[in-house]
């Protein structure tokens, strides 16, 4: 359930709407459910509404942890 994708904010409007891009495809969506977003941020988009800002730091930390899982493996390898 709940197909949602990260989309880039291209333009913000005063009425709580925004234009976002997902891989180059643009769509008019509502950002009324998220605070403190700016052009250039990524938001999680589900059925035309942004539900959350994507945290750049957490994304990088998650990828780093995934890479670490592999590093440990190499240390243990005979």
């Amino acid at each position, binding site marked *: *359930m*709940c*197909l949602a*994708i990260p*989309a880039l904010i291209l333009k913000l409007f005063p009425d709580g709407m925004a234009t976002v*891009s*997902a*891989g*180059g*495809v*643009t*769509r*008019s969506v509502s950002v009324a459910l998220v605070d403190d977003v700016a052009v250039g941020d990524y938001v999680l*988009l*589900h*059925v035309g509404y942004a539900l959350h800002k994507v945290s750049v730091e957490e994304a990088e930390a998650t990828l780093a942890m995934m890479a670490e899982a592999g590093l440990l493996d190499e240390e243990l390898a005979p």
Partner: protein
Amino acid sequence: MTLLKPGATIEMAHGGGGMATTRLIREIFAPHFANPLLAQAHDATRIDAPSGRLVMTTDAHVISPLEFPGGDIGSLSVHGTINDIAMGGARPIALSAAFILEEGLPLAVLNRIAASMGAAARHAGVPIATADTKVVERGHGDGIYITTTGLGIVPEGVHIAPTNIAPDMAILVSGTLGDHGVAILSQRQGLHFGTTITSDSAALHHMVADMVAAVPSIACLRDPTRGGLSATLNELAEAASVQMLLQESALPIRPEVAGACELLGLDPLHIANEGKLICICPPEHAQTLLTIMRRHPEGQNAAQIGTTGPRAAPGTPGLLRMTTLIGGTRVVDWLAGEQLPRIC
């Protein structure tokens, strides 16, 4: 006085065979389709065809919307029929076109479609040799239905058919997948997304002629139209009783098409293409064919996407598989019905 007055539409009289029909043909169809064959103006057109094995194909086109980024029902029908001829390795020599027009269709729309069809036929060098038009009452048609039939000649020594497909062959595709379907979707009510993706509708016969001339041992060609790459390869795998394995990382897909698919929850493998072909060939010729395709504008993003595997018993399900981006395997099965967007 011209038929093409602002606001003019198709009326029942235009299909009646009388003066109105003649004017429609003279003022809209004939100028756009003009060629020596059509100019014979007989019920049946005489064609002096070169000798050789004759092939014939027909297609009915019922698309909505009628016009879309990168084409319309007219150019689509011309390209589609030319491609069907070309997929057998044949050279297209002539087309026919039959129109069913709905009362109320704006003449300006018909004119645009006829112009586009004529241009497509001229650009491809394949004349529309004969045509017919009828009109149905309002509500009995989707604006316009077009049926095109094509004739072609297969050159000596060319035998292209699914039965040639054998294990350990290369599977090539001539370019990016899903462009047409996404272009159509972007026009659809209720979806409202903006994209620069246009339909890839194109005639592929020149590219095919070059390919066949260079590599007569091509096993099979097919264009992945309705149902996308998945439907076409599943068909071929079944027809040849052979397994197939694709590499997801090798599939050429435009970022915007990928983005639209992610947004709507669609799988690009099931989305229609209108200007692409799949080529299955002996592996030693794959590079040659890729080079030839890439020299053509329609084949710019040609790539090898997989290989055929061992023979399978006829009727075995799940012949088409794909190694996924993360290195797992999935079956690429037929889709039941039309693929719909999803929220889940």
